[in-house]
């Protein structure tokens, strides 16, 4: 019964996943370090993640709601095992496509299938045809207001 209820509500949610806070973390009212602290979450507090914005994730923790540092979260709980079916449905709700059938098929990208694959020149040719020129890619980026930045390579 509980499962059915969850299924019914799934399409209404953009995204909601159980997660655990991996270290003591402040629950903030807004996604910013200087925002008001709504609650102090202890290590291993269970929360539900709702949405991400930059380095912050909006969560509910019991009755409280707010933002925590994204990297303070670990998704899944020990009980996650066997919920693959659920996440499949999730996937359908999220992408609108038919989702993925996670089965070991005849064709696909398991180690053995890669090892035994024969070259497919026709598909390689197709891929060349889909290539983008640097100029086309730059205007594509500009359409989404993406701007090139100078960012140092890490040491």
């Amino acid at each position, binding site marked *: 019964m509980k499962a059915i209820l969850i299924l019914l509500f799934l399409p209404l949610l953009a995204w909601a*996943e159980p*997660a655990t806070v991996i270290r003591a973390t402040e629950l903030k009212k807004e996604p910013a370090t200087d925002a008001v602290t709504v609650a102090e979450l202890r290590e291993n507090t269970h929360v539900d993640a709702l949405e*991400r914005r*930059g*380095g912050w994730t909006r969560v509910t923790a019991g009755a409280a709601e707010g933002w925590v540092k*994204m*990297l303070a979260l*670990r*998704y*899944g709980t020990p009980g*996650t*095992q066997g*919920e*693959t079916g659920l996440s499949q449905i999730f*996937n359908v709700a*999220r*992408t*609108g*496509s038919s*989702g*993925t*059938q*996670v*089965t070991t*098929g005849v*064709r*696909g*990208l*398991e*180690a*053995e*299938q*890669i*090892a035994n*694959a024969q*070259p*497919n020149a026709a*598909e*390689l040719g*197709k*891929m*060349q045809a*889909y*290539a*983008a020129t*640097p100029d*086309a*890619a730059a205007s*594509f*980026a500009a*359409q*989404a*207001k*993406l*701007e*090139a*930045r*100078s*960012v140092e390579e*890490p040491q």
Partner: protein
Amino acid sequence: MIRWLLLVAALAAFPAQAQFKFDLNRAIDAVKSLGRASMEIDEKQEIEIGRDLAARLLGAAPLVNNAGLQRYVNNVGRWLASQTGRPELPWRFGVLDAPQVNAFAVPGGTIFVTRGLLQRMRSEAELAGVLAHEIAHVVKKHHLKAIQKSAQAELAGEALSLAMKDSSSEARGKLVRFGTEMYSRGLDKSDEMEADRLGVVIAARGGYDAYGLPAVLQTLQAMNPEDSALALMFKTHPAPAERLQALSEKMQPTLDAYAGQPSVMERFRQAVQTK
């Protein structure tokens, strides 16, 4: 010079008409005994080997039959590649029609992401994060160096350079086999960690929300690790939790400085949903 002469002598032992089909192993043994030659694969050869490897991966799974989606991924990828130290490579990007969750970098600038992984992403910034990680492997020549290392252990430099001249040669077949094995065995962990760090940088340079790659790693971490769709990815990469930990230790300032950049959700949804 002496090595060359000996190789020529070794080859001369075979009948002339069989020169292109010479017994490679005997030739290798002959040259091997001369010691290890240092062997460099130049960029032209890198691209050639890459084409062979890409064709092999496409034999395991073809492209998703959706021209709009393929062009979309090429635009995202090409824009990112332009922000790297190897902008001039013939960069190609493809979505493989496979349920497995994975992505592959092929020397010379070919990048694949699977349908299974794409469907678990939520924004263009997440796609950019994954493509940037793979682009980083190509920029740093991780696979190429690994192939080179196996080749050096198995093939002598001279036999290899002969092989490079003839794409139908047995030696070329061997090279491609080393490369193919790389995708089932995985790279060194340090290569993966480096690609994560540089991937974050490349996505940020492209103007994307820098948290795209960490977000995908969190998605992977939330999946059932027993899920067969993850088997190869988990076998060939460090655990997502470990990768996230490393990024938060080493890249927090970069991540935060570029967290406010666009994540481009709407365009991504449209491109991925149109079937």
